[in-house]
């Protein structure tokens, strides 16, 4: 495996949890809800994955992670959608609650001093044939099942948003809630479901972090990836396919950072840490700055 392939493989691997969370957030934001609680849902998903995998293997871990993400986002949905509280503040509080709860449950389940959990993971599943494609094959098609799930979900999200009447209603709810209501869209219910889908996907993102990437759990291990996912949604212009590309871009930037450190010395690595964010800002200010946010985004 040459350097380029390693880099691309790492980029896709690092991008997977970001992509899963960003897809979920895309759906929620397209329905008009900005959910900063996905950082918390992702963390809950990570812990759920750890607990589930401990109890019954990786598949149960994936299921438990999805359920945990769902639970956290249900809290958000009830407060921010049902009771129409401010979305930003609710999201912040929900993330805070998730940090506290996961910490408490983790310490309760595995002991206050922590253990180096070593969990059964989802192995690499090379797709026969496709993974042999030069340069890109390995990166795209020798990954864990959750990465393939993410590819599939990109298509699903696109189909859901642009090819179903439910998706049409969802986009209408995000663009102009009042008008959507007049056209017969049950805005609150649509938003509720969109948030729950987003939470489930964030939970899945946590699962991919734990079960496909590191095989262990640690407190606060999501380390801001939920917030990064929100940046990715913006960079991707609220469109599933472009969001996928944006997630890959962020994944590549993060992977590049490690690669640079292991090969180059003396360059402040913090510059690489800043890079994706600065680039996103530049891109937003430039050509894609014209990408419109959903008209009613953030308005409860």
């Amino acid at each position, binding site marked *: 495996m040459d350097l380029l392939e390693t880099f691309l493989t790492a980029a896709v691997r690092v991008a997977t949890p970001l992509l899963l969370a960003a897809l979920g957030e895309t759906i929620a934001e397209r329905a008009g809800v900005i959910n900063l609680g996905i950082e918390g849902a992702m963390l809950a998903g990570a812990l759920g994955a750890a607990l589930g995998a401990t109890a019954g293997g990786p598949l149960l871990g994936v299921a438990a992670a999805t359920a945990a993400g769902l639970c956290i986002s249900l809290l958000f949905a009830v407060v921010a959608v049902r009771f*129409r*509280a401010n979305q930003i503040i609710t999201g912040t*509080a*929900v993330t805070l609650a998730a940090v506290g709860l996961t*910490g408490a449950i983790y310490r309760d389940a595995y002991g206050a001093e922590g253990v180096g959990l070593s969990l059964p993971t989802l192995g690499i599943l090379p797709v026969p044939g496709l993974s042999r494609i030069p340069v890109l094959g390995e990166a795209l098609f020798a990954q864990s099942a959750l990465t393939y799930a993410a590819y599939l979900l990109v298509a699903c999200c696109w189909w859901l948003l642009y090819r179903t009447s439910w998706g049409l209603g969802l986009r209408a709810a995000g663009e102009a809630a009042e008008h959507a209501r007049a056209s017969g869209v049950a805005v609150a219910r649509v938003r509720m479901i969109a948030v729950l889908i987003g939470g489930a996907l964030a939970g899945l993102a946590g699962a991919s972090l734990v079960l496909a990437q590191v095989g262990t759990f640690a407190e606060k291990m999501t380390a801001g990836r939920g917030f990064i996912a929100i940046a990715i949604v913006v960079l991707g212009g609220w469109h599933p396919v472009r969001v996928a590309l944006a997630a890959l871009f962020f994944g590549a930037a993060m992977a590049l950072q490690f690669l640079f450190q292991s090969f180059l010395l003396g360059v402040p690595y913090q510059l690489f840490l800043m890079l994706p964010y600065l680039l996103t*800002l530049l891109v937003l200010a430039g050509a894609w700055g014209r990408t419109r*946010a959903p008209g009613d985004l953030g308005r409860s």
Partner: protein
Amino acid sequence: MPQDPQLRSHGHALRTPLLALGIGLAVLVLGLATAGYPPLPALAALWRGALGSPDAILSALLPRAIPLILIGLGIGLAFRAGAFNIGAEGQFYAGAIAATWVGLALGTWPRLVAVPTVLLAGFAAGLAWAAVPALLRVRFGVLEVISTLLLNFVAEALVSWMVLGPLQESKHTYPQSDPLPWAARLPQFPGSRLHLGLLVALCLALALWLFGRRTLAGFQLRAVGLSPAAARVMGGVRPERFFAAALLVSGAFAGLAGASEVSGTTFALFQNLSPGFGFTGIAVALLARLHPLGIVATGLLFAGLEAGAGAMQRDAGVPAVAVYVVEAVVILTIVLADPAARRAGAAATDPASR
């Protein structure tokens, strides 16, 4: 005399935060009981840590409140104008970096000049850091919610670079700056950790309150936040100017908080200077319904909660993570129980601000 609508229902304004605090504590007690910790000693410890002794007040509660109040004041101002600044964390670090830089260079200056210069440096750096999202919003239409969030990550990387690079202490071993010279340090209240930053914060709160209540510009700023279109058409003001100015000043306040933290509390730059002030600051501001004097009270409330949480760990063995849950419950209860807080946010999150 027509009343300031923010003060119209005096009793009511206090009821919700107190209710929320009560519910938050109730949840805490329930959680503690289920987790097997005796709740009463824990609550006693909470009280002791926050308000239980003059020392707790002077060295734990008040010093913790200073950055929260300063940041809360800035965020409150920005939200009033409809600018959703969630980048106070980054602006705080920008201020801290600048204050350290300037403070280290001023060792020979008289303290009376050096300290204000240090604070001013933090103020200016926070302002400059907030100028980026302001410019992006006004010139390119980039939502400030996103740009301020992104800049937080950049600031974190920047401070990490600073303490390992240009601002690292002279032996180049520890990831921190050299300690600030005495001349650049905010005077402390003898025998305690309380520093003069509190006075600065209180004066600014008072000034902001007067600004909002008694000046035309302050009133116009609120109008811009409520309805940029009406403020433009009826009031003849330029909403984007108020919007940008509020964002800048709010960044400056966060920068000032960073400077006061370095100059009054830690005396050196560290990369983990903030435990998330920028996000707690949002809660502080919203909880007070963006009212400057209310922000002083809610800043103290959150400082008390966190100081008390330390005592709960120390004296009752309650895990540190419990306090996150309490804070979350308090915030959620308030946004649920208080339609005004809900609306304050709604106006602020309106990304269109047309």
